[in-house]
């Protein structure tokens, strides 16, 4: 059902945990009960560090792991522009019906970036629909 890359990120997730001095914390959930919390350490408009905590299936955990890997070192703009398709592609595909688990990671990253922006006195960026 899951390919080797997904299983690798599920069994050996990267960036699990919390960042104590995170300056952007966001969360997202879906109707299936999957829930992701993301912690960002942002410095000079870049994601210096990213960690996550996820309750969910293998796809949700692997997506969280991959998404945090993909945004580390990126500018906030680049991190904001990460799509769930980018995450799924980096995982070399997710089974049908599991793509929405990758949406969770994008939503949680957006939530964290917007929390950071609010703290900086900047307005929240709107979600593109």
């Amino acid at each position, binding site marked *: 059902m*899951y390919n080797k890359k997904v*299983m690798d990120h*599920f*069994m050996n*997730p990267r960036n*699990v945990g919390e960042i104590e001095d995170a300056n952007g914390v966001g*969360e997202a959930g879906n*109707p*299936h*009960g*999957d*829930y*992701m*919390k993301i912690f960002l350490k942002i410095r000079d408009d870049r994601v210096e560090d990213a960690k996550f*905590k*996820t*309750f*969910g*299936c*293998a*796809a*949700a*955990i692997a997506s969280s792991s991959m998404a945090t890997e993909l945004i580390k070192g990126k500018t906030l703009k680049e991190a904001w522009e990460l799509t769930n398709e980018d995450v799924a592609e980096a995982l070399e595909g997710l089974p049908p*019906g*599991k793509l929405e688990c990758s949406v969770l990671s994008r939503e949680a990253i957006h939530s964290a970036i917007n929390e950071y922006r609010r703290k900086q006195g900047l307005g929240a960026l709107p979600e593109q629909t």
Partner: protein
Amino acid sequence: MGEKRFVYMDHAATTFTKPEVFEAMLPFLKEHFGNPSSLYSIGREGKEAVETAREQLAKALGASPEEIYFTSGGTESDNWAIKGTAFARRKKGKHIITTPIEHHAVLYPCKYLETQGFDVTYLPVDSYGLVDPAEVEAAIRDDTILLSVMYANNEIGTIEPIHEIGEIAREHEIPFHTDAVQVIGKIPLEMEKKEKNVDMLALSSHKFYGPKGIGALYLREGIEIDNYMHGGSQERKKRAGTENVAGIVGLGKAIELATGNLEKHNEKMKRLRDRLLKGVLKISDCRLNGHPEKCLSNNLNFSFEYIEGESLLLMLDEMGICSSTGSACSSGSPEPSHVLRAIGLPPEIAQGSLRLTLGDDNSEEDIDYVLEVLPETVEKLRVMSPFYKPENACKK
């Protein structure tokens, strides 16, 4: 961590085919390949083998061979019993009574019948998954034409009060069907005595160490039922289609072994089950689903808070342990197990369920291994969970 083992603990899903069963089947896949409807000798050999298996099955069920019909498995048997009875009796009424914890092989035919103008009552169950016979009686209407309650639940193992329900059905002259797929080889059945009020009973060979693709419907003599398969005149004109001779022979042998060894099997299952249960319940924030006593000897179903079942199942699989979950994510369905929801578990708890079903091939060493791997795996997932706060975990 000791050496990685392969531990199969999903016997409610399927069992391995016993070597004796396979040996019995082999000649009917090779030299005795004749069509049992043919008149020449290799056809007659097939026919004789089918009738021998029918006798084996009838003996195991305490029934008459004339009341045994071979089908392709539990799903066909359930579908036939439910739709066949509904259509045969629709002039008498349109009301069917069942439960919300039935296997989909019962629930989906009932849902289909609703689209055909039938009215289905789904009886409530308690937190153990037990049906109250008084609720059965209260649900009966003048136009009730069928009652279907499973013998034992496939997810949580709870054994239903079939005899009491059967008595009610008989008093009201309503045909009573039970899905006994999980029961064979665990509970001794006597259709003419103990289960005297059960009119239709479904079983499937691969649940008791026989081959897949073969099952049977016990149909009490005189029960009005439409044919489900139409075609040839096999199975006394009630179930068309060339007989799966090798499968039928395998079923016959499997049921002979399963019922001949039942007491010893149950004793072993209960010993292993009790040890596993005791060990798993040491994990914090874990609960047993299903009835602690009125339960199949080999079934355990747990819920672990703060984690999701599919993740647990896959991590256990990586460690060589085959199990099952009622998690929505594993099934691709948007809802967690209908059984766990029906017994009142909130979705977030139902999501973290794990079913371990023991079988003949399990040993004390398997239990040791599961008790070593499972707590570590639960902890690994909990560390990832945003809901889990170790300081709040219930210490047992």
